[in-house]
């Protein structure tokens, strides 16, 4: 029973969400929005499981004085600070001037912006390694990447801008690659993904792929 009922739920809900697309009549017309809301509600409950897990592991680390336990203290303290500021702030917890907003502006923002920014370094080092003409395939990768990169910056303006009006050969080549060969590859990938998802979704709805439900007990 512990496995059958979930399988039945998956089947019924899965089929219902496939056919709702074709049926404009109520109640099917409301399914998509309703699921979006329900999912957000379930996820908002579930996040407590994750947060408690994070706290549990951090506290164990501190208690057992494992390596780097001091940083676990930092995790616990900063989690509590942010969560308390958020809950105490009430509905308007994000209003400028609140404690939550201050933490957001001066701690959260620089951290996430910097983490995103170090991508610039990684893009540089990855392209140094990957853009190398080892064989035909790698050469195609290199040439396409190189040409598109050249067309994206001011090189046209610098190299040709003073000579000719509206002469942008690098940008033109770059656009051609983006619009045709790149588009072709993207389409093949996209159509393949559509087939893969259709097949995976069917396996899930039919209960053939059921490992996400775990074991029988």
């Amino acid at each position: 029973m512990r496995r059958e009922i979930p399988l039945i739920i998956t089947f019924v809900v899965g089929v219902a969400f496939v056919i709702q697309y074709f049926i404009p009549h109520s109640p099917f017309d409301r399914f998509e929005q309703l699921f979006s809301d329900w999912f957000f509600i379930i996820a908002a409950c579930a996040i407590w499981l994750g947060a408690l897990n994070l706290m549990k592991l951090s506290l164990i680390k501190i208690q057992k004085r494992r390596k780097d336990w001091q940083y676990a203290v930092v995790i616990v303290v900063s989690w509590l600070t942010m969560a308390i500021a958020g809950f105490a702030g009430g509905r308007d917890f994000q209003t400028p001037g609140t404690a939550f907003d201050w933490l957001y502006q001066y701690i959260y923002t620089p951290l996430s912006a910097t983490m995103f920014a170090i991508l610039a370094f990684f893009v540089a080092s990855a392209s140094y390694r990957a853009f190398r003409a080892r064989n035909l395939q790698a050469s195609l990768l290199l040439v396409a990447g190189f040409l598109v990169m050249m067309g994206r910056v001011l090189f046209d303006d610098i190299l040709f801008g003073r000579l000719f009006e509206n002469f942008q050969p690098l940008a033109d080549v770059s656009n051609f690659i983006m619009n045709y060969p790149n588009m072709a590859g993207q389409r093949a990938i996209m159509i393949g993904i559509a087939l893969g998802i259709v097949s995976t979704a069917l396996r899930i709805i039919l209960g053939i792929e059921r490992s996400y439900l775990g074991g029988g007990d």
Partner: protein
Amino acid sequence: MHFDLGVWIGAFLTLGIISFLYKDNPWYKICEAIFVGISAGYWIASLFWQNLVSKLYDNLAPAIVALFHGQIQYNLLYLVAGILGIMMLLRLIPQIGWISRWPLALVVGATAGLQFINYLVSNGVKQIYNTIVPVFGPVSDAGGIPPVATTGEGIGNVIILIGTFTGLVYFFFSKEHKGLFGGAAKVGTWFLMITFGASFGYTVMSRMSLLIGRIDFLVNDWIRGTFG
């Protein structure tokens, strides 16, 4: 000299994260721990107010009030969502934790159903539609098909056709990549490589901008703001 606590904290955290690029160190570890704690706290508070309160309470409470006045409203359905959420939390009690499979089954079922359709439409049928274009001409105008504007566009259309075709051949799983079929699959991989190269080259600029933003913060907000 002008001291701004927020800016100094920002600079401390920014440099801490960047220091990781040299090697792992206590400074980075502190920043990482702060980041994990602060962001986990941020999301739990946000989801509480924006999902549980805004979506569950605000929809359900008026419906329940109306129920006491004898009206049955559509929004009473949110009660089910509330119950499913609580079922999820029952994970915390190991003996009845299995009940959390119900909401999970609902989420997985709905996702499978929705994405089956969404991808079939936007990644499947629409892409097929976009690919079916004349490569030149068209010969007759009986069908009212818009003509191919330039030779460049015609060549481009042929490239798209070949690339899409051979690319899809590459994805065949149940046929060995040998002979003509294997040749087509090989051409398909060439197109995939060009695609990867082009998308990669395309993003380099965008990523550089992000780093410029942080360097600007360090140079202008922090150093010039404090000392200059």
